[in-house]
């Protein structure tokens, strides 16, 4: 790497395009990220509320299922309650 070529004078149009698109990309990235994270926060809130309702339903179903199982086991083991 003894003699490197002389630096090229890049045309200003190309430099303008590069830097312009770079800053445009940064701005677009920040803008889009903000928009998506706000949407996701709203969805997360709704899911949280649904989770409370869903957990209740699941607990109820589990209780019913376990009671049914206990009855079956009792009938199999011959214990009359």
């Amino acid at each position: 790497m003894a003699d490197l070529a002389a630096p090229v004078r890049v045309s200003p149009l190309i430099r303008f395009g590069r830097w312009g698109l770079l800053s445009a990309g940064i701005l677009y990235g920040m803008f889009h990220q903000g928009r998506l994270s706000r949407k996701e926060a709203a969805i997360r809130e709704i899911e949280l509320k649904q989770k409370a309702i869903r957990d209740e339903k699941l607990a109820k179903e589990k209780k019913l299922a376990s009671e049914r199982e206990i009855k079956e086991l009792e009938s199999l083991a011959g214990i009359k309650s």
Partner: protein
Amino acid sequence: MSKLASQGPVLVKKLLAEAQPKFQTFLKYAKVELIPPSPADIPQIRAGIGKIITGARTGAWKQTPVREAWLNTLVTVEVICWFFVGECIGKRHIVGYKV
């Protein structure tokens, strides 16, 4: 391990000392090739854009040699790719958005 810890600062100093001239060469090229366009270049930029538009309108682009067209395509693709680099910087995540 103790040898690594004791030699650590010495190695870092050697790395910095060796990187300095290389960094200077990089700066030498960057000052000519990578600087953002100054306001003095605006007329040149307008002329360039005008040339592209008239070239596209008059159909002169059909007369360019394939080699030049290929080079123009490469430069255009590189300039467009900077937009995606900027987007990665803006969203602070390399692949995809982290919500």
